[in-house]
């Protein structure tokens, strides 16, 4: 599975009643920005390496967090990350992210399942963590 075949496959696909708006992002390495219908506000960034298909949604920046709430937020993130289906929480530079990774040999259906779950999880997380933000 590579990004080119995903562009073609996702463009016409439907999974659990959801469709996918795929936009390649200009750059040296292929990265796709994928908006899942019904969760357009949390676009998924996807890239494929030899080891994994990495799917990632940006949640918020460090500067958006109330300073006094930071320890409690981190504790909450660690606890939520385990039961959250197919996704985990992390940090990239100064951005908090939710991500999921799949085997590069995953099927199209598995990738679509990941994308839908991740985008929905991101919306739930933004609501869950709202009180920790400025």
């Amino acid at each position, binding site marked *: 599975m590579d990004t080119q075949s995903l562009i073609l496959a996702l463009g016409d696909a439907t999974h659990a009643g959801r469709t996918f708006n795929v936009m390649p*992002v*200009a*750059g*040296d*390495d*292929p*990265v796709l*920005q994928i908006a899942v219908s019904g969760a357009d506000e949390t*676009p998924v*960034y996807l*890239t494929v*390496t*030899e*080891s*994994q298909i*990495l799917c*990632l949604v*940006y949640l918020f920046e460090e500067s958006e967090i109330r300073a006094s709430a930071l320890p409690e937020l981190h504790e909450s993130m660690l606890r939520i990350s385990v039961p959250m289906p197919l996704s985990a929480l992390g940090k*990239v*530079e100064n*951005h908090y992210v939710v991500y999921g990774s799949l085997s590069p040999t995953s099927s199209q259906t598995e990738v679509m399942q990941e994308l839908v779950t991740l985008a929905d999880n991101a919306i739930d997380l933004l609501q869950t963590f709202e009180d920790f933000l400025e």
Partner: protein
Amino acid sequence: MSDKKDWPKEVEALKAVQLAFDLSSDIQRAFRVAAAMQDLNTSAMVRKALNLPYRRKRIRPRITVTLHEEDFEQLAARYNLPADDRAAIRQRVAEELGQFATAFLADQDTPGK
């Protein structure tokens, strides 16, 4: 960490995603600003940039602000007015918004900005 032979490639992939996110954010911001300046919604602005047909929705250039009790108190303190003199406070709010708009538009017209 560097002992893991595949991880440097994953770090590179993560950097590529970060660059893509930054670029997308910049593009989105540019389109929101361009749309606002042309009284279009963002999706119409995107269609216009691509020379596709778009619908120009009539956007009423109306500014409203809902002021709550605590807002009046805060503004009264800043304007040095009694908190119950709401007409005077509203007048000062209107003046301040007008000043902001004048300064903003002058700034936009300055060459090189």
